[in-house]
């Protein structure tokens, strides 16, 4: 009977995962956007309910009704209207939409951190009173689980029935071929608004149900919710039933595993696996599933549209200004200089994102994992506690540690050979979550780890100079990754993979290489970051922090290494001078404004400057009209038939 009881207990968490998966799926199928923000929406609603009930003393039922029936749908409609509809109008690429949903996620995180602080709250109100229902046969089922299962049933049935109605048919028409549906007079925007409203409501329900079982905390709670995206990968982004079954299965398995008892190391491992079973499921799913059923095909998976597109000539001499700015902290007072130690380190991490995502177009949301690994490996190498390796003295650690991380980077690059766009983004994120949960948070890996700067660089001044040297080396390497034969080949992979292959570029090898190079850079940055604070803090390498870093890089120009340095400086400056959460909020808002800042902040400022100075346009003939018109795929089909020579077009029946 014990097994059945555990299974029933596991259904609770399983049904919540199923719910959030359903929300993700509904939004994705109706809007074509993979709503990364769902985790933060769940977190935000859970906090809101807490605020209403615990602080304002609203009646629980009223507060929940207000949040789930008014706030959630309204928020969904609002972000559709303000964020995603403009993107739709511009026929944005999947990468641009992903960044927008990342922007929403980050804005919510920043706002939550500013409002409620980073400390954990343990008293989230429980929407469903804790009561056990007695089933025939004596087994007990918590009421909350019943409610979760009921909501799931209603939603799945609703979707199944909805598909068959004429409205459902219209919705599907819009989803399949948005442009054509619009020609038929179907309102695609209404369908999208519906998708967002439904998706955020389901996320909200999942968040409210999840909150009492967890600590309420902006980053932590959001990450747990994000881990449930395992079920939509299992469902290959299509089947709601598979998502629900997947969620329930993992939930039940998690409960059943608590029955297994082992000893020693195996026990610690089992405990880690059990408490992070959704991460295991996510990792297994991204590695096993061959292809996601992505809306609108996967042809535009890369970040080319986010890049500066070589529109303007490079600014000469920018590095002199940068060198001056970077040297300034040497004159700062002690506390400020201590804070500034993080700038070059973070800059190197951000540059690693520029390399992989900006230069070669491969979305990588997992750089925080490499940074953390670099920090950990460096610390253990310096202490001589890395199994199988001798103690590495002094600065040599900064060379050896990144090299040791390279194999992990190659491993991460492996899935990237076949995956692009959204699937690659999810895969890299999953790997970084796994590293965080199974390495950074495991006492066996991190306890007793002492982090020091290398011997001769103990003083803040000396260490800062060392960091600047590392940054300079990183820049020298990065330069070769953006110029010359190698740089051109990487841009070719980013701009058009099929075209690059047709040119003889060995894309497989190049992708592995670029992941390896960028993981080494991230590891170097991470090692410096930890040495600067003299501690290994898993929170510093949280996967969600990695998402914020990625967004920051996009905001400052995804293919701009100087932008990454400025971004790092700004992030650290905001973090040290303003309440925590401000920098997150700023990055999130900027990510949402990217539509107005093509190519990122720096590039836009540069363009503005060029316009103000009225320099002549870059050389070459004036741009042709074809540039102003961006055809939809329907329009392209029409254009193609017009361009056909008369012999073909004219004689068609």
């Amino acid at each position, binding site marked *: 009977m014990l097994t059945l009881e555990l299974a029933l207990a596991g259904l609770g968490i399983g049904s919540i995962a199923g719910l959030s998966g359903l929300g993700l799926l509904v939004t994705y199928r109706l809007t074509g956007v993979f709503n990364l923000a769902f985790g933060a929406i769940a977190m935000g609603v859970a906090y809101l309910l807490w605020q209403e009930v615990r602080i304002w003393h609203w009646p629980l039922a009223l507060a929940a009704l207000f949040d789930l029936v008014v706030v959630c749908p309204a928020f969904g409609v609002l972000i559709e209207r303000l964020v995603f509809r403009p993107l739709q109008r511009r026929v944005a690429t999947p990468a641009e939409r992903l960044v927008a949903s990342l922007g929403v996620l980050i804005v919510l995180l920043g706002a939550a951190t500013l409002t409620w602080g980073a400390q954990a709250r343990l008293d989230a109100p429980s929407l469903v009173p804790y009561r056990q229902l007695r089933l025939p046969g004596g087994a007990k089922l918590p009421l909350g689980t019943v409610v979760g299962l009921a909501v799931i049933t209603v939603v799945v049935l609703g979707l199944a029935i909805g598909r068959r109605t004429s409205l459902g048919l219209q919705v599907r028409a819009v989803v399949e071929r948005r442009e054509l549906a619009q020609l038929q007079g179907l309102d695609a925007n209404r369908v999208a608004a519906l998708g967002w409203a439904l998706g955020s409501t389901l996320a909200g329900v999942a968040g409210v149900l999840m909150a009492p079982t967890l600590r309420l905390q902006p980053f932590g709670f959001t990450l747990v919710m994000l881990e449930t995206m395992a079920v939509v990968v299992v469902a290959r982004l299509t089947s709601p039933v598979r998502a629900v079954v997947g969620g329930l299965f993992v939930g039940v398995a998690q409960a059943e595993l608590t029955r297994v008892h082992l000893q020693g190391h195996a026990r610690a491992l089992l405990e880690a696996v059990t408490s992070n079973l959704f991460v295991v499921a996510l990792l297994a799913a991204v590695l096993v599933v061959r292809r996601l059923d992505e809306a609108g095909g996967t042809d535009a998976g890369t970040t*080319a549209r986010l*890049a500066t*597109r*070589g*529109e303007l000539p490079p600014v000469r001499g920018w590095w002199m200004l940068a060198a001056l700015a970077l040297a300034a902290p040497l004159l700062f007072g002690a506390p400020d200089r201590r804070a500034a130690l993080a700038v070059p380190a973070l800059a190197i991490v951000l540059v690693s994102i520029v390399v992989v995502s900006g230069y070669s177009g491969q979305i990588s949301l997992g750089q925080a994992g490499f940074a953390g690994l670099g920090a950990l490996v460096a610390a253990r190498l310096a202490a001589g506690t890395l199994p199988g390796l001798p103690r590495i003295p002094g600065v040599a650690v900064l060379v050896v540690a990144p090299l040791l991380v390279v194999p992990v980077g190659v491993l991460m690059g492996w899935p990237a050979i076949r995956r692009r766009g959204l699937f690659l983004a999810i895969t890299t994120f999953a790997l970084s979550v796994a590293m965080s949960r199974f390495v950074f948070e495991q006492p066996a890996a991190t306890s007793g780890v002492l982090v020091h700067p290398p011997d001769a660089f103990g003083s803040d001044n000396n260490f800062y100079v060392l960091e600047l040297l590392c940054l300079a080396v990183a820049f*020298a*390497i990065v*330069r*070769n*990754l953006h110029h*010359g*034969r*190698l*740089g*051109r*080949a990487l*841009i*070719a992979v*980013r*701009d*058009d993979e*099929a*075209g*690059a*292959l*047709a*040119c*003889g*570029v*060995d*894309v*497989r*090898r*190049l992708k592995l*290489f670029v992941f390896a*190079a960028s993981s080494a850079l991230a590891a170097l940055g991470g090692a410096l970051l930890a040495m600067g604070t003299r501690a290994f803090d898993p929170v510093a390498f949280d996967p969600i922090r990695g998402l914020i870093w990625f967004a920051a890089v996009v905001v400052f120009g995804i293919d701009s290494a100087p932008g990454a340095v400025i971004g790092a400086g700004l992030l650290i400056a905001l973090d040290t001078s303003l309440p925590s959460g401000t920098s997150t909020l700023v990055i999130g808002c900027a990510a949402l404004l990217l539509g107005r800042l093509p190519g990122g902040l720096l590039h836009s400022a540069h363009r503005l400057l060029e316009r103000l100075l009225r320099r002549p346009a870059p*050389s*070459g*003939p004036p*741009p*042709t009209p*074809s*540039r102003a018109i961006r055809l939809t795929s329907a329009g392209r089909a029409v254009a*193609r038939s017009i*361009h*056909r*020579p008369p*012999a*073909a077009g004219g*004689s*068609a*029946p």
Partner: protein
Amino acid sequence: MSPALEARGVSKSYDGVLIVDHVDLVAEVGRITVIIGPNGAGKTTLFNCLSGVEPADAGAVWHRGDEVTGWSSDALARRGLARTFQRSSVFPTLSVADNLRIAAENHRRRGILRGLAGLPDPGGRRAVVVVGAVLADLGLTDVAEVRAGVLPSGTLRLVELGRALCGEPDTLLLDEPASGLDDTETEEFHQLLHRLAARDLAVVMVEHDLALVHEAADVVYVMVSGSVAASGPPGEVLGRIDVRSLLFGRTA
């Protein structure tokens, strides 16, 4: 001498639908081989199977006498089998010259670490020379430094052709190379085709313009619903069967 490209029994299906059905094809050096057929006949899919973009389900492909079945498209490109795409695949953020240069530079494999260390590329000189020659040949010298993303589609066709030529290929697969060209450009393109064939290149192209086929082709393949309905010299093929109704009539 073995043909530049030979395919036997190449088949491909998507979702259980046979799109390319046991196609045999031979492309000789110095000849222009043209594939015609209605929309959806499977011409592009056949090209994808020949150039390694998609693996064929069945059949075999030989390039200059060596079997290359199942080779990846980049390896085939380095072997000398170049292709263009029906939907432009130029690199929009790079200049025209750089677009071509990528093909010229990657036509042999070279060490990545060398590039990382910033050492000069041993073949770089030659690549620049090849690019210059091709640019001049195609009349693209004026736009060499313009970003490809801002150019009109007719010019992009030429850029893509130039890119294919920069890999110093012996076999060229061109998917509707003349679509999007205006009248003068089409005329220039004809001349170019003949110049290419005279250079001992095997040209295989998909084309809809029957006038061009008559004028330029040495061999014509008519593809309908995935299989080759007829093949031979253009005079015979186009004269004997009612190609027009085959292509655009009820059978399509």
